């Protein structure tokens, strides 16, 4: 066994590098900075070997080898880039793209949606070269408001099928037929709502061609401006999934899962993925309100409202004593809200008349 004193090695583009037993050639190569194209690969999923774009040359092998499924073996000599491999990849790209109606996909479609577009550009793939039969029929009949199902742009990489099974454990998405009859579908060819789908959106975010799309984000495609991403954490349950907020100007246009989110590793649920737009709902309070003598709430300026609140608490303290005031902090707001609330009560009244909403 060829070792470097530290463990087994392979020869990668002429350079001896270490690998961890069980590691695939693709994993070892990317860890050492090699740029190998993939389309069916999602690091969270089991190796699949469907698109074959990750082929490399292995010394002694008869044909190029899919690096995502080939495990490293001691002494293996691998060439990740050669004229032969690049021609091979270009041909594969031309075959993959041949049946897709569109290659330019809106960036709001999903997190992975640009992967194929970028590879078509990189390999200058001639999209019409193998034009002919097509697989996958779109499902514009599915009325769900979250997930676009445009299978005309599907290349049968099965990332959606696999993420639903392996990552989510829902097994809602399946494959019908083979070859040009391949169709990504759900049970009984129905709509997603009638299937085991939970609308977590993971299939959308991993789709590399824009066949599956985030309808909520796409609804903002006409908002002008560059798309900006801001890392934050989901506002719903206590799991604390990291997300990237998509914004254009001052408009919140979507959410994408953070693949390196420490608590979620790219996973989200229907609420975290799709229930973001309450933030910019017209019902949002935009100004302080103060109850008038007519018994109704009226818009007020900050000074008036703050004075009214402060005077009210002072009056109650004077009239009934410092134990007559109580504070309820939020389990939804950040630490800074809860901290100032307890300080307000303890500092203002010297009591422990403070709680949060965890008991109901």
């Amino acid at each position, binding site marked *: 066994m060829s070792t470097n004193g530290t463990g087994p090695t392979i020869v990668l583009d002429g350079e001896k590098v270490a690998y961890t037993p069980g590691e695939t050639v693709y994993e070892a190569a990317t860890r050492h900075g090699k740029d190998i194209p993939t389309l069916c690969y999602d690091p969270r999923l089991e190796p699949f070997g469907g698109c074959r774009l990750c082929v490399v040359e292995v010394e002694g092998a008869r044909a190029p080898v899919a690096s995502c499924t080939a495990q490293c073996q001691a002494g293996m000599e691998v060439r990740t880039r050669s004229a032969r491999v690049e021609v091979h990849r270009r041909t594969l790209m031309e075959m993959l793209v041949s049946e897709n109606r569109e290659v330019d996909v809106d960036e709001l479609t999903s997190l992975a949606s640009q992967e194929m577009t970028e590879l078509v550009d990189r390999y200058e793939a001639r999209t019409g070269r193998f034009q002919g039969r097509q697989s996958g029929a779109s499902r514009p009949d599915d009325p769900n408001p979250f997930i676009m199902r445009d299978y005309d742009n599907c290349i049968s990489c099965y990332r959606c099928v696999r993420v639903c099974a392996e990552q989510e454990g829902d097994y809602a998405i399946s494959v019908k037929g083979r070859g040009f009859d391949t169709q990504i579908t759900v049970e009984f060819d129905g709509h997603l709502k009638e299937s085991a789908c939970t609308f977590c959106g993971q299939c959308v975010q991993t789709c590399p061609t824009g066949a599956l799309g985030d309808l909520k984000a796409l609804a903002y495609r006409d908002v002008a401006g560059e798309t900006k991403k801001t890392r934050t954490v989901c506002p719903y349950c206590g799991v604390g999934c990291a997300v990237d907020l998509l914004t254009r100007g001052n408009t919140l246009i979507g959410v994408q899962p953070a693949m390196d989110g420490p*608590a979620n590793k790219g996973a989200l649920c*229907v609420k975290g993925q799709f229930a973001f*737009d309450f*933030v910019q709902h017209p019902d949002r309070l935009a100004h302080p309100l103060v*109850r008038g003598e007519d018994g109704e*709430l009226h818009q007020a300026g*900050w000074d008036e409202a703050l004075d009214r609140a*402060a005077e009210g608490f002072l009056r109650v303290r004077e009239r009934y004593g410092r134990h007559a005031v109580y504070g309820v902090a939020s389990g939804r707001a950040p630490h800074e809200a809860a901290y100032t609330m307890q300080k307000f009560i303890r500092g203002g009244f010297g009591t422990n008349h403070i709680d949060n909403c965890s008991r*109901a």
Partner: protein
Amino acid sequence: MSNPLEDMEKPDVIFCIGTNMTECHPVAATRLKRAIANGAKLITADPRRIALAELADVYLPLRVGSDVSLLLAMAHVIHREGLTNQGFVEGRTTEAEAFLQHIEKFTPEWAETITEVPAADIERAAILYGKAERGAIYYTLGITEHICGVDNVQSLCNLALMTGNIGREGTGVNPMRGQNNIQGAGDAGALPNNYPGFQSVLDPAYQRKFEPVYGRKVDLELGPTKVRALEACGDGIHAMMINGENTVVTDPERHHCEEALKSLDQLVVIDLFLTETAELADVVFPATAWGETDGVQTNTERRVQRLRKAVEPPGEAMPDWWIVSQIARRMGTPGFDFESAKDVFNELCELSPLYAGLDWDRIDRGEYHWPVPHKDHPGTPILHQGTFENGRGIFKLIRYRDPAEVISDEFPVWLTTGRRLPNYHTRTQTGRAAGIDYLAPGERLEIHPEDVVDWGLEDGGWAKMTSARGCMMVRVEANARSPRGTVFTSFSFNDAPVNVLTGGGYDPVTDTAELKVCPVRVERP
């Protein structure tokens, strides 16, 4: 949680009780499903045949509110079968002798008479968990929202202690926190018994420590819980400030709650929307929302993470901390000169031993689990490794108690409440997110299909549901997830105000309402 989320893929036996995780903590549930796919065994105890029941190797469909008897019998079987971890019990626990004697009489046959779960299934579950190399317990409000919530939690701790399933990778006693920052609200000291960092208000040393922070001595006595404060409204409590909670809809005994808030001399609400609660206020302040606010939140695994502002708020909305500080300053309260969320968080870090090693900049990437006692500390993903905070793990002698109210001729059906996947709490947020209505257009009362027929109801038709406190109308959904004689609804929809009915009792230690058990009558209107 005693253990981090990533540990959810590591147990060989998983015991889920009182948690509908696939709907309430869906992303955590994906990890459990992967553990199961990799060969872990699952025990699910829940009155309803939830998705985790379908995935279970042993499903224990216990009657609502009977958890203590189930857990006592499991302890009994574990000990009877010689599966008690003697080394752990001797080395790390106390009161074991009294506990092992205490559980002798609680046989699975006895538990069957209370839980309605076959004794043989209780034995199977106990032996499975008892033999686990790495056994992990997960629970949620199905354990705590009972008059015996503390007893339930301590019963689970007893199981973990007697089997040594705590303080190691892939084990633990793991409550899944239900709200994004409910952990952080407690961490920050918004509790009637603790200063920030869970430092007791009854300890004169902490009173002295915090005197300069508050500019005064704070009472050496516990404050009332929110539940008690609501009871005292108009009679002792005359002013309230409520931040980001729709108390009227979430709390039990809704009519009582509304009357209580109306009786105040002053109610100040800080929120995003004019909620049912804000409508009762004298002053309402518009807060900035998620996506508009810089801040910090702590998740269920004690991971401290940053929230970041991406867009400007509507109109004149301001961050909660700013609003509270401005009111405090106008009252002449010292110590509210904060200029940013960072200032506030860093003050908390200086005062909390759990956060002593953290500050605003250090949590940028969110890799720390508290406690982080000093700046060189890597954080504590797994609690209780090697030792417990108070030395030894204490076995508690728990006895079964009936729920505050039990079914009767007048109220012969058990009602239990919870959440559903697409909606969150009272829909102040999800109700305003486009598309959610497509998945959950309205509330439904889930009733076993045979009960629907027996009670003269129709699937999709209306039912009238009455408890000792109130009455509501709700549409019927025939659904075999509900066992015979037990019905379920969420508390999300204001037009199906289930908390008009709930509120039969409260846990004597925590004042948590028994929202999971409410005897009702269900009839054709």
